[in-house]
């Protein structure tokens, strides 16, 4: 252990030294006052893998979205409209009024970094690859909502994708434009010659179709392992080299908007934990970083760094404390309501996510910002579940719980302990649960926090119904269906099989939440929330509005989860070397900084 501590300390020192030398390079990289070198990190990927290929589908691939990885369009994640995009490989597009097809016109000057033009054939091959990865619009699961039925190359620069209207989705266009595009002349070997035939067969029924689907998925493994000999990019940068400390990308002179791309080089620094990013930021080394959870004092220190500039915006996600209603006493709505009253969400947010979240005003199933857009004034008519110990006691009594010697027990007098689960490493969740635990114990409800090794195991175990209570990401917008499928989707028993909604009983087919199939909502009547959620898939914004209102009321009344806080998208930027950063609350904040650069926003400081 001593030896390990010494090694860890030495490694830390070495990293710090590397980081310092990186900083020196940053300064020399600039010409005059401005910067030629753009230094950043990929917050979604701790630990660079120097041996990983420039493959956008490889889990550790050295392919950075917006920089050397391009999509057809950049999804804006608009609060209410999922079909708004910034142009990328596609310069413009037409979406059919009934959402049945999308026709995309590629950038007339789009070229790969090796000088070859980007064509509709490149897009078709990339769509073929997307099928092997089970992407939303290009799913091979029979009857999947919003899946493409046909891909047609209209001409060299135009391509049309048609939706299978037997189970349509309003997100179809989004699913298509959100596709990564790779060069056919590099990648064409990954798809077998008869791929499109196989795809046709896979859409049928019977053993032949099943076999074809298996073969397509097997190609997916080949795609993941594919190693392009060198990085051929249609983005503003190409990968030059990667070492364990950093990845260096050089400006792609063939990029269609190269004239407006300010940095000559981009450097992604390696990191293994948040504290390393805090150190980069406090030293002013990074020109940009996505959101990193930080305690208030660290955040203040980051703000004091020279040139530090924080930009905040909407992040379409919230976190809730979800219940397994198959387990007692969480099957009783009064227990869930009592807990909602007992937990002070303001305090939880202050402790767990002071800079990255705002306490949820209530449980509506939606992030507060889209909730206002979707249901407006109705939001204020929902029960706010304000922190109120007396109300909590009333609810617990109504649920039949008993209070003995200051401790709440189940109706039969047996002990009750709220066991909350969280994945290890999710420090804000653990911190929140620790705070909730203290709040509950102080009010006579025994509680404990249990962690599991990692997020995939957590998801597996929660789906298997192993937990009573767990934290759950919800309100995953912006598409209305996406928002409510977190509460009334597969995890609560509702699945869409070939366009038909089916409800599985609690404990079966991944239904771990176990809500009732029908809920009697005050002022609305009896509703089937899963069926309503499914309707959102094909509904227009106007059609969706009343459904969203009904689901918000259902979620608020029935509390399958207590919404704790809504996340805030805080981006860290630095004005010492570059300017032109997005405005506060800009929709660009929900896209990688490479997109800001390629759109020509970011400028060298003069």
């Amino acid at each position, binding site marked *: *252990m001593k030896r390990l501590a010494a090694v860890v300390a030495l490694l830390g020192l070495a990293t710090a030294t590397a980081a310092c030398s990186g900083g020196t390079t940053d300064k020399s990289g600039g010409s005059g006052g401005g910067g030629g070198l753009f230094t950043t990190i990929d917050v979604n990927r701790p630990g660079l893998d120097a041996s990983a290929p420039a493959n956008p589908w490889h889990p550790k691939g050295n392919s950075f979205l917006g920089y050397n990885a391009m999509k057809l369009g950049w999804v804006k994640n608009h609060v209410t409209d999922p079909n708004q995009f910034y142009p990328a490989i596609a310069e413009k597009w037409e979406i059919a009024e009934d959402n049945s097809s999308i026709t995309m016109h590629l950038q007339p000057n789009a070229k790969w970094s090796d000088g070859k033009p980007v064509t509709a054939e490149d897009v078709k091959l990339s769509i073929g690859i997307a099928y092997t990865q089970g992407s939303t619009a290009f799913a091979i699961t029979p009857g999947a909502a919003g899946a493409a039925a046909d891909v047609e190359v209209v001409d060299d620069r135009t391509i049309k994708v048609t939706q299978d209207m037997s189970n349509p989705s309003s997100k179809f266009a989004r699913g298509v434009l959100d596709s990564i595009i790779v060069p056919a002349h590099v990648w064409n070997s990954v798809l077998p010659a008869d791929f499109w035939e196989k795809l046709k067969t896979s859409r049928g029924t019977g053993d032949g179709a099943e076999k074809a689907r298996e073969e397509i998925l097997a190609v997916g493994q080949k795609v993941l392992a594919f190693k392009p000999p060198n990085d051929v990019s249609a983005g503003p940068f190409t990968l030059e080299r990667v070492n364990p400390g950093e990845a260096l990308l050089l400006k792609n002179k063939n990029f269609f908007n190269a004239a407006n791309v300010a940095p000559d080089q981009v450097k992604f620094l390696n990191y293994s934990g948040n504290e390393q990013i805090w150190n980069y930021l406090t030293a002013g080394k990074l020109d940009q970083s996505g959101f990193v959870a930080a*305690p208030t004092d660290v955040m*203040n*220190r980051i703000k004091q760094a020279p040139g530090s500039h924080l930009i905040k915006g909407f992040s379409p996600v919230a976190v809730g404390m979800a219940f397994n209603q198959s387990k007692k006493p969480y099957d009783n709505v009064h227990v869930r309501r009592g807990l909602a009253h007992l937990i002070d969400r303001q305090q939880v947010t202050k402790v767990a996510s002071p800079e990255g979240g705002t306490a949820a005003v209530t449980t509506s199933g939606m992030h507060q910002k889209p909730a206002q857009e979707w249901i407006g004034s109705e939001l204020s008519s929902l029960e706010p579940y304000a922190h109120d110990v007396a109300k909590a006691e009333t609810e617990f009594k109504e649920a039949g719980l008993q209070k003995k010697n200051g401790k709440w027990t189940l109706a039969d007098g047996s002990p009750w302990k709220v066991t909350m689960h969280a994945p290890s490493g999710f420090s804000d969740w653990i911190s929140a649960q620790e705070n909730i635990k203290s709040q509950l114990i102080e009010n006579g409800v025994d509680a404990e*926090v249990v*962690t599991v090794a990692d997020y995939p195991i957590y998801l597996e175990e929660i789906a298997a119904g192993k937990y009573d209570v767990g934290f759950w990401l919800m309100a995953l917008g912006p598409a209305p269906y996406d928002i409510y499928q977190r509460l009334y989707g597969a995890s609560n028993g509702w699945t869409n099989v070939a366009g038909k909604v089916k409800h599985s009983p609690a404990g079966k087919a991944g239904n771990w939440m176990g809500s009732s199939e029908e809920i009697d909502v005050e002022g609305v009547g009896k509703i089937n929330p899963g069926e309503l959620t499914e309707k959102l898939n094909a509904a227009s914004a106007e059609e969706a509005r009343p459904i969203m209102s009904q689901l918000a009321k259902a979620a608020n009344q029935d509390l399958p989860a207590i919404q704790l806080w809504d996340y805030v998208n805080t981006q860290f930027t630095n004005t010492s070397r570059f300017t032109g950063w997005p405005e506060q609350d800009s929709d660009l904040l929900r896209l990688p900084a490479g997109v800001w650069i390629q759109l020509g926003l970011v400028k060298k400081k003069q």
Partner: protein
Amino acid sequence: MSVLLESTATSAAMRRNFWSGVWRVMKRKPSRLVGVVLMAGFVFMGLFGPLFYGDPLPRDPSMLTRPPSWQHWLGTDDQGRDVIALVVTGSRYVLLAALVTAVITVVLGTAIGLFSGFKRGRWDTVLMRLTDMKLTIPGLPLLLVLSTVWKFNSAVQMGLVLGLLSWGGVARAVRAQTLSLRERGFIEAARGLGLSTTHIVGKELLPSMAPYIAMNMLIAITGGVYSQVGLFFLGVLPYESNNWGQMLNTAVFRSGALTVPSALGFLLGPLLAILLLTLAIVLVVDAMDEIFNPRLREE
């Protein structure tokens, strides 16, 4: 044998002489007294410390991760709890796990070493190859792997695993001592008198090695503390709300103790506790060494 020759009076006199010898050794270097006091303090802390605080610990949400002050001598943690209170209440898990580790290390190591050294022959070969194998398995990586499949739910489980991974060194050393002692005259005499193996091992060999074993046990406690605190610090074990290693992990990775000074007290609390515990053990072992080895006495 010795029991047969001793009268009650002589054994009482020997005990008196022993304790006066202990006192003389302690007085010669007062730092050893400090060690004993510190160790007694840790034992008291582990046994009764949690009784001094409520459950859950008092907290102040307006005082999250504050630096040391008159009110909170080592500051507060990220939940607004006093760091000293956390160190005191967290000691029970750490010390209990370390004690279990030490007991298992010493009992297993001594048993295997004694048996192996005394029996020699095939048993010695088999047991020592087993020990060699055990010594070649790197403990920490094995623990990291084990922690992914085994949920260490209690201090006893934690200590059990650590103990099972650390008996090899003691077994080797005890075997070496046994091999040396078994050739001495008093063991030859015991054999000549036809005394049983149990008697020779239990009444002749073991008492001669007891001081060495006791010292090993104390040192194993520090090893147990370092291992489990290290594992919690690395975040590979399930969350334990009150544990020194967890405190270090939270201080560094969540509260930014290496980035901002406000969390420094939070970091120092468990570090000081580990430092003082190690110091106490080193000083007591130093005293024991002199008590049980008269040749080291300077007078």
